[in-house]
């Protein structure tokens, strides 16, 4: 399975805006496979950590109620162009991913 994500970080004049999308099935564990009638096991991201220059700025705790391919958007203060923003995630099956972007 492709474990990819996209992240954009830019200076909006007064703060830094972040937009991120993580490609993940976010399976609830309640859905049934139409062919076999068996439940599809839950597979969802549980935690997402956003860091600015190694300092934690936002922790997201997610459950199966978050949509497939989760999207996240927020702004924060105290950063400048060229700084690193890192977003990393873990899911309930032990999968993980993450990426770093430079603020533009």
């Amino acid at each position: 399975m492709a474990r990819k994500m996209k992240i954009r970080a830019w200076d909006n004049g007064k703060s830094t805006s972040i937009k991120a999308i993580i490609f993940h099935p976010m399976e609830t564990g309640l859905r049934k496979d139409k062919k076999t009638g068996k439940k599809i096991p839950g597979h969802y991201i549980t935690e997402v950590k956003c860091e600015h220059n190694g300092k934690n700025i936002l922790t997201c705790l997610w459950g199966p109620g978050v949509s497939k391919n989760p999207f996240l958007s927020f702004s924060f203060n105290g950063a400048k162009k060229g700084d690193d923003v890192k977003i990393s995630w873990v899911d309930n099956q032990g999968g993980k991913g993450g990426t770093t972007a430079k603020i533009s």
Partner: protein
Amino acid sequence: MDTSRRIILKASMAAGTLAVAAGANLLTPSTVLAAWPAKAFKATKIDVAMDAMTGKGRPTPSADIKVEAPDIAENGAVVSVKIKTTLPKVESISIYVPVNAFPLSASYILSNQMETSITGRIKMAKTADIVAIVKSNGKLYTAKKGVKVTLGGCGG
């Protein structure tokens, strides 16, 4: 003699791979975060989820929290929600959908660098209120917004 030498070689190679694997494990960035509140996320009733997430105290309604979501969502699997607040010292923002199998959708823990506006996408089983709970300065506040869902997003 030759065979035992082979065995020793094999054994030492296996041990080598194990050591590398253990090393790699240690080197991966610490994605081990604060404990995920399983009890709150697995609760099937909003009250139980709220107890597990923020304790027994119930939030007071506040006009300083805005829940921005569409009035009508055609697809309950993807409902865009923006929670915005002007309350001071926001510590966390949680989003609940009371009618979902698991009412707690997401919870965000904010540092003091954060601006208090977060956008995400959640699933909704059917027409309901989206409930936002904001912890500000140690107290709980809430606001909600009704969304009409024409196609449920938690279907089986």
